């Protein structure tokens, strides 16, 4: 899988231009074969849809539900699933997030796989109690008698250009503070499929954030057959010896862009690490990279204070203190509610990242 992932990396290149993605795909066919495996070109949305379809296909005790899931979802991630699997297994719920997650916990407690959708990550907070006090603690508090490991909560997250306060948030750090949950955020169609299938199979409750900006802006060859990417394992997207760039979800393409530009303009070789899973996160991978480069820049869309970047910086500082050549830097959202017209100044951008990379490499 790792090898394939490397091969696939070469199929895709993405360019960040202002507020929208442009991408070019080097593969010209709709299906391709690499190492005897079938691939299909897919957007992140297609990949999610296919993962859900295959999860529903492989186990009749898998259910998909949430607000407007029945007709295909407001982002079309559940398109065609109700027709195929019936209203008992793919269905709308009343508009209540605490109800959706609470119901999902009960479904999972019966040994079913519950794939619940929260329409926007911004609206996951009414379900915070059910996730943090119930789903996360059920196995621990019952001594293993009961658990909600079959629960996966999908939620579109991140900036979308014009989402304002309540269609833009990245709430991952609220959940990485909660033992018992796993927190995942993919940055590509291939990972979206492999990680979502892994999340559904994982015997622990998983919060699965989908960067909605990437739903239709990234296309990649994705294996047609069901496959899983391991949770808790980061992926090195670009190798380099001068500075380590760590991100997840929508900041990964920004890091790739910034790395390409500083390589060209400054001769700085950046290593890009995509964390993919934030809880439990792959500290070994980041430690290995920073031990080599001696420099660290972490980037996420969420506000900087107490964001998950703080955890990465603190842990890596402890593990790599004597190998660090410069203070680790964070390029993140500002400590404000997510703004509408000032979105470009709020978010991390390639320019901001290049500035941070140059700053850390100057020290």
């Amino acid at each position: 899988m790792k090898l394939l992932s490397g091969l696939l990396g070469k199929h895709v290149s993405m360019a960040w231009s202002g507020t929208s993605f442009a991408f070019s795909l080097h593969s010209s066919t709709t299906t391709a074969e690499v190492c005897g495996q079938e691939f299909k070109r897919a957007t992140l949305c297609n990949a999610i849809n296919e993962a859900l379809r295959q999860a529903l296909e492989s186990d009749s005790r898998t259910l998909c539900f949430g607000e407007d899931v029945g007709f295909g979802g407001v982002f079309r991630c559940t398109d065609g699933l109700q027709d195929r699997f019936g209203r008992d297994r793919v269905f709308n719920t009343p508009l209540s997030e605490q109800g959706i997650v609470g119901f999902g916990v009960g479904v999972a407690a019966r040994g079913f796989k519950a794939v619940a959708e929260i329409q926007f990550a911004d609206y996951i907070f009414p379900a915070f109690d059910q996730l943090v006090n119930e789903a996360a603690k059920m196995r621990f508090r019952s001594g293993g008698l009961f658990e909600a490991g079959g629960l996966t909560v999908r939620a579109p997250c991140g900036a979308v250009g014009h989402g304002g306060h309540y269609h833009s948030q990245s709430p991952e750090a609220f959940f990485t503070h909660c033992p018992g949950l796993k927190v995942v955020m993919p940055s590509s169609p291939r990972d979206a499929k492999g990680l979502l299938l892994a999340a559904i199979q994982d015997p622990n409750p998983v919060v699965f954030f989908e960067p909605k900006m990437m739903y239709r802006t990234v296309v990649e060859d994705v294996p047609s057959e069901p496959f899983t990417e391991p949770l808790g394992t980061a992926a090195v997207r670009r190798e380099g010896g001068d500075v380590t760039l760590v991100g997840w979800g929508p900041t990964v393409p920004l890091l790739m862009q910034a790395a390409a530009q500083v390589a060209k303009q400054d001769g700085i070789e950046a290593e890009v690490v995509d964390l993919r899973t934030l809880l439990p996160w792959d500290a070994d991978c980041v430690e290995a990279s920073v031990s080599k480069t001696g420099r660290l820049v972490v980037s996420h869309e969420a506000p900087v204070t107490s964001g998950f970047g703080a955890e990465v910086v603190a842990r890596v500082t402890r593990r790599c203190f004597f190998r660090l050549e410069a203070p680790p830097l964070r390029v993140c959202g500002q400590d404000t509610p997510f703004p509408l017209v000032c979105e470009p100044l709020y978010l991390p951008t390639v320019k901001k990242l290049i500035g941070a990379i140059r700053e850390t490499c100057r020290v």
Partner: protein
Amino acid sequence: MRFLSSLSRLRLVLRTEQLSSVGNAHFGLEHRCFRAGYAEAEVAEEDTADFPGARVPTTSKLEFIGGAGKPPEPIQCYRLVRRNGEPIPGAEVPHPLSKELSTKMYETMVKLQVMDLIFYEAQRQGRFSFYMTSNGEEATVVGSAAALTDQDQIFAQYREQGALLWRGFTLQQMADQCFGNELDPGKGRQMPIHYGSQSLAFHTISSSLGTQLPHAVGTAYAMKLEGSDSLAATYFGDGAASEGDFHAALNFAATLEAPVLFICRNNGWAISTPVEEQYRGDGIAGRGPSYGVATVRVDGGDALAVYNAVRASRALAMERRQPVLIECLSYRSGHHSTSDDSSKYRASDEISSWKARDPVARFQSWMAHQGWWDEESEQQLRLAARREVLAALDAAESVPKPPLTEMFTDVYDSMPWNLCEQQEEVLEYVRQHPEELPAGMPFPDAAKC
């Protein structure tokens, strides 16, 4: 509010309109036939508000319903046995109790009462950290539990230990949980009275109020898909019914047609908050019909009535694969918990007058009325229960606490690296400072991580 989703909805609407304009040529006839039903009732159209949200008669009078000015008729309370234990003549008793079943119910209620009394005292003596009694609600809990089958999944709040006793959880298991010793299946992680049993289909209690209600709905829905002949039953108090999870659960159960019994213990108090400060409608039962949920209100001090109401509710829920709400009216005659002194917020004569209306004594009188119980059986039962409770407490107290490593297991199915690291740190700390190890805990072996 959710503008992106509204945009998508708008697109859907547009698409549907385009489709229907194309489809009209083909389906115009059927379309007219469908509409004909309305056309026939031209006059009725004026009298009907035909909206997707509600198809209802119209009125030209501006009238408000409900509120303090014009409250609806209150839902009646189903009762079969008078306070003195006399059966009410001519009462509807679809499920009469046999001598055997009523004896088992009575024995369970007495066991619960004796356990509550002695466990409460044991907590006051500092033998363990916390306790909550069921005083005044014994008939509600045992009567309802007796009406369920053993496979029905119970999701309780915390004042339902009687249901566990009914199912065969032993006093020893109760004591082990309260002491958090190594025999506690919960591994000493939760506060006392947070019981659970997989084999008795009793989902482990958590302190957060109301959270179990949507769980019961999810489990009931899954059981329906399995074609199970069992359902889920969930208990909660009148206070917990104010939580958002109550609203979510009743609405989900109704719309998703989940066979779940919502059993409310309305005991008049949520800690110090009386029901007048909890709600202004017709109790909890008053809310059921507005969710489209079949509802019944019952005298929670009348074990026979509770048993009958729950048996009938269960049959209805299984037959229709739909939820039923049961409100049991009672009085919390004990303190809220061992951390509460209820004389601070309610009159002592109120408490004593309700204590005199002990539902266990009421059931005993009813049984005596049937010629099924006498004073000698009573003395033997109470004495045996007392001995059993005291022995359970002594035994539980002498059992060691679970090993320190259980602090880190079961957070996940397997331990991630950060927990392994922290486990090793804590073990090292305890090796250096053995005096920090909690009392009764064995000195830890090497970590298994």
